[in-house]
């Protein structure tokens, strides 16, 4: 973790992920989902993996991201870049609000508070039917176009073009996040995770740092929610519910805490597995539940950690064989 990998290596890696994914998967839609949930998982990992804050309310940021972006595309028609940037700013704002309240408490109360705020958001979205569509969700969302004046105008109507857009955003965010966690800020976050009292004693304003990381998490998660709404052309109420929160959390732990690469892996494993289970059986959630329990019990470090262990074992076995004459 402490090794300094140059940023362009991460850039190449992200590019490779985005390029290879659709070749391995049956559809661009699934690949798009993996990348955008990967972003949401990175957002969750910033809190849990790097700072040690278990937020059970990530769906609040995800869901409000999809509502904001959807509403802007319907009422304002700003084009893709301003829409997404404003969504991220609003996501950060909501996250700061939640963060300011939630970080007053630690441990289980912190988890409960994030959960309560997410539920609050859910019921507000449910009630505000004239704006959000209530239970039916926000319908008729159009994907805004990217227009560069006098040069070109890109539309994202096809599955492929939308995947390309998501992929480009993914690469940018991925690299920025790698930069963030290796920055002095990221180091302080890790310090807070490892020993909060000490970080405080050294003189860091732990509360402020926690709020900042909430803001980052909120904006990245809102971005993912916005892309999801554009992908579906629809913002369902379920984007902001308990289940979305727990899914994002599960993907995060599945992929491995404190790893940006793991985040993408967690999202990929989860979505491919759900996709596979869903075709097997209408009651596929049972299998998902079993998978969840299995992973939690036997792979506490997540898939990426288990893979590392496996590689370590294989190479150790090779070494052993090499030593024998």
């Amino acid at each position, binding site marked *: 973790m402490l090794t300094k990998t140059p940023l362009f290596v991460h850039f190449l890696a992200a590019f490779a992920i985005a390029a290879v994914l659709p070749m391995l998967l049956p559809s661009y839609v699934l690949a798009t989902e993996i990348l955008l949930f990967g972003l949401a998982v990175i957002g969750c990992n910033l809190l*849990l993996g790097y700072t040690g804050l*278990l937020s*059970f309310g990530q769906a609040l940021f995800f869901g409000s991201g999809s509502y904001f972006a959807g509403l802007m595309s319907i009422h304002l028609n700003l084009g893709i870049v301003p829409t997404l940037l404003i969504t991220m700013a609003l996501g950060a704002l909501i996250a700061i609000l939640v963060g300011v*309240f939630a970080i*007053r*408490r630690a*441990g*289980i*109360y912190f*988890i*409960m*508070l994030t*959960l*309560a*705020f997410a*539920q*609050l958001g859910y*019921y*507000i979205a*449910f*009630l505000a039917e004239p704006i959000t569509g209530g239970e039916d969700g926000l319908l008729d969302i159009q994907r805004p176009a990217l227009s560069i004046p006098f040069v070109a105008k890109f539309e994202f109507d096809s599955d492929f073009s939308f995947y390309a857009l998501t992929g480009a955003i993914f690469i940018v965010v991925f690299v920025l996040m790698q930069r963030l966690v290796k920055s002095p800020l990221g180091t302080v976050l890790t310090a807070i995770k490892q020993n909060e009292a000490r970080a405080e004693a050294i003189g860091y304003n732990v509360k402020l740092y926690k709020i900042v990381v909430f803001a980052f998490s909120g904006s990245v998660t809102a971005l993912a929610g916005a892309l999801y709404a554009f992908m579906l052309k629809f913002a369902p109420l379920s984007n902001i*519910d*308990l*289940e979305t929160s*727990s899914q994002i*959390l*599960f993907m995060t*732990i599945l992929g491995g805490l404190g790893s940006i690469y793991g985040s993408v892996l967690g999202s990929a494993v989860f979505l491919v597995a759900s996709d596979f289970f869903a075709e097997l059986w209408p*009651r596929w*959630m*049972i299998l*998902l*539940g*079993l*998978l*969840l*329990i299995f992973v*939690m*019990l036997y792979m*506490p470090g997540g898939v990426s950690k288990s893979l590392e262990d496996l590689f370590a074992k294989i190479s150790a076995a090779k070494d052993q064989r090499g030593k024998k004459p």
Partner: protein
Amino acid sequence: MIYFLMGVGLTIIFGMMNFVNFAHGVFYALGAFICYQVIQVTGSYWIGLILTPILIGAVAYILEKILITKLYRVDHAVQILITIGLMLIIREGILIIWGTVPKPVATPSILQGVIFLGDFVYPKYRLFIIAISAGIGLGVWYLLERTRFGITIRAGSENPKMVSLLGVDTDRLFALTFVFGVALAGIAGALLAPIRGADAFSGDEALGIAFVVVVIGGMGSFSGALLGGLIVGLVQSFTAILWPEGTKVMIYSVMALIILLRPNGLFGKA
């Protein structure tokens, strides 16, 4: 009162075992379905009400033995996700057995109709729920505060190692506590079934409410759960008059407010 009943099981399990049970809500839903099924078979609501906690307790006992017992020493995050997995499995199980359409449960004939209390008209069945919940509450209080079992449970929550060294079988103690807390959720489900019906998806809402009750009162505090239940009930009734759609929003707002003023909940320990 019913909110108290939902919260108290959760708070006992958390307070005594330091275990966060996100499957608590689905046990509430399962309670309603078991009650429905028993009524289908025997035709009597009363048998349903008595058998439900026993059957739910049995389910909880088996789960404790094969799964929950491994989780006492792990992180809260892991407990939460595993119990969410459990929740998914039980909920989908309910859907497989009973289908996706919520099942109605009839109010027993003796409790149908209303009672006039001065100027107030009150449905008999709701009064019955209040009486039963109060009775159960008293029973739980007596059990925890006045019996040997209660003393060992409370001691076990303070220092499991020490209690175990003193010759108490803590594994058995924890199993009983878990079964007991879950059975309380099951009773709540069975009691509410004639009002709300048996709905597989009611678990999420019940879980949310149970957590609000417990967080308001302070995790692990019995009297806190009682007070939390009362507060949630009052907020619910008042908003139901003034702003019927907004009850949930108000409940969660009140919770956030209380946490801000009293970060440990009203009766919580740090």
